[in-house]
């Protein structure tokens, strides 16, 4: 049974924000798939089916204080950290004002300095060791900030995932490791990715708690993350969260999941769409009325249209960017030894 939203302890106002962001993220995701199909952008990685888990996760952190190393399906969480649809669309159009890579990074490589969401590569699990360094920094600073890092289930086969968990256990680092477990790595099902009963068990092997969390249940997710964040803030170390979610769309816009997932399975996934569940919940719990939801849909459609037009109209990077910021600029006065 999915737990009531109000059992999360969040206020009605907060829950309204959460729901609106989940819906905005879904509608934006649909728009981004459309933009790719019509040739306006070259690529999109959908996060549909992972929104509720990501929302529960993001709400447990303090954006601007805590560091966040997202992976490519994290649009919902990224937006809850304070990023707008227009900014995300600018990244997808390769525009200079896109916060993730100023036109240099592929779509979905979410990052933004102003909310301490750190720039990511495409090499899966590569962000895990980096997250431990940021977490070690909190110890040096005597700060109670926490570092959040996410990846997919298939990516846990990478050595860097394990090396990071091992050191985080040894050094008791204030970090929350997340596996957004959608059961697939492109076309490869989980049973061909790992034999463990649950990836949460990986935590034990490194001396840190590992927990399985239902990422289709907002309240369960939020409370599990809150506990992990509290642990980290208190100096009790890292937690590994195996967040069970759904991958509703193809792996990316370059993939066709009908080749490797049966019709029946895809129908099941569609029926389990967590957006439906949470929509029913907000109605049942009186967080939104039916009429308000209709208004919200209308408003989001308008907002996303405006954001799309504005993002598309934003300038591409200047050609000078090609050779800028390869190395640090020379700055003799500050003593920073850029090019000396």
């Amino acid at each position, binding site marked *: 049974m999915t737990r009531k939203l109000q059992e999360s302890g969040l206020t009605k106002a907060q829950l309204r924000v959460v729901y609106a962001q989940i819906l905005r993220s879904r509608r934006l995701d649909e728009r981004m798939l459309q933009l790719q199909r019509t040739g306006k952008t070259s690529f999109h990685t959908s996060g549909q089916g992972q929104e509720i888990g990501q929302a529960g996760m993001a709400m447990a952190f303090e954006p601007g204080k805590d560091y966040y190393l997202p992976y490519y399906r994290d649009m919902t969480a990224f937006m809850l950290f304070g990023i707008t649809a227009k900014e995300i669309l600018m990244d997808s159009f390769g525009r200079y004002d896109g916060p993730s*890579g100023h036109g240099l990074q592929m779509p979905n490589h979410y*990052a933004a300095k102003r909310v301490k969401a750190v720039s990511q590569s495409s090499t899966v699990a590569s962000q895990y060791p980096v997250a431990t*360094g*940021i977490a070690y*920094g909190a110890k040096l600073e005597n700060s109670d900030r926490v570092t959040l890092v996410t990846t997919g289930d298939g990516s846990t086969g990478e*050595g860097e995932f394990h090396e990071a968990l091992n*050191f985080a256990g040894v050094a008791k680092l204030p970090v929350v490791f997340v596996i957004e477990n959608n059961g697939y790595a492109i076309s490869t099902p989980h049973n061909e990715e790992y034999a463990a009963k649950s990836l949460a068990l990986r935590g034990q092997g490194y001396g840190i708690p590992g927990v399985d969390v239902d990422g289709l249940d907002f309240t369960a997710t939020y409370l599990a993350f809150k506990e992990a964040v509290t642990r980290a803030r208190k100096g009790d170390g890292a937690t590994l969260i195996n967040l069970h979610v759904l991958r509703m769309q193809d792996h990316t816009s370059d993939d066709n999941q009908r080749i490797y997932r049966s019709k029946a399975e895809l129908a099941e996934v569609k029926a389990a769409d967590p957006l439906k569940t949470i929509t029913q919940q907000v109605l049942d719990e009186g967080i939104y009325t039916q009429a308000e939801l209709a208004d919200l849909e209308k408003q989001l459609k308008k907002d996303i249209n405006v954001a799309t037009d504005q993002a598309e109209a934003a300038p591409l990077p200047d050609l000078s960017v090609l050779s800028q910021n390869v190395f640090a600029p020379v700055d003799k006065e500050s*003593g920073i030894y850029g090019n000396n």
Partner: protein
Amino acid sequence: MATIDYLQALNQALDEELAQDDTLTVFGEDVGAPKGGVFNVTQGLAEKYGDLRVFNTPLSEAEIAGLAIGLGVSGHHAVAEFQFADYILPATNQIISEAARMRYRSQGDWSAPVVFRAPYGGGVGGGFYHSQSTEKVFVGQPGLRVVTPSTVRDAKGLLKSAIRCADPVLFFEHKRLYHSIKTDIDPDEEILTPIDKAQVLRQGTDITVMSYGITLQYVLQAAEELAKSGIQTEVVDIRSLYPLDEATIVAAAKKTGKVLLVNEDNKEGGVLGEISAIISEQALFDLDAPIKRLAGPDSPAMPYAKNLEQAFLVQPDQVKQAMQELAEF
């Protein structure tokens, strides 16, 4: 004045920077107390600065690199030691995909101002995996500086500069220089070596020899000996392996018109080929002889058996002979 060797110079550099930069951490396998590194480069530092700042890591090279990068990203400085340059390879993804790309891919929003130290070089009976020169794996990666000191003064000054540099720096130390070269250094002098400049160690008019590492010592020694028979050698310490200091390289090549390039690494596919290309592009018509490279054979470095190991290594007499032949060309 105190006479110190190359290894003591490295230790002093770390000591001075730890003292003046609160954000600096130093770590790696066996780097902390009480051992202070398998070569003792970090000896005494954990005792002095505490084991939160100077510490052991698990055997985990990708993690060591990522730890440094994460510290750099969040406003700290880090010197990560790889026990041997051979074992930096498991960390290649972190160094190239993360550290070298961080500033560019975020257009300066994020950067990784960290140092990766790596003892390299053979002649220590270490076989394949304690002897290699792995610099050619990492040169040619925009965003990543690759440097190596070949004098005691630079061991200190270049490491201090690398720590202060806003870019990630891969810092190679030749193992056989650790105790084989010594210099008088005033302990109170603040030495900061330019991070991206080659240096002319000896002026000459007949031939130009460029090198780095232990082979540079052979070049200096041969230059001294050949001077007695009237051959004047311009000796260039390459120092910054990437990016290369084109201006100094080209000027030194033009000065004599005869160029010999020497390193311990394999001949093909390495730093020397790139230097040669720069000279060909910019100074071809000033040359009086073909550019000559003296380097290791194109076999994996390097066999254990003493005779094979010595046959792999560029020897002092080969250097001297190559210099003499070039002078006579």
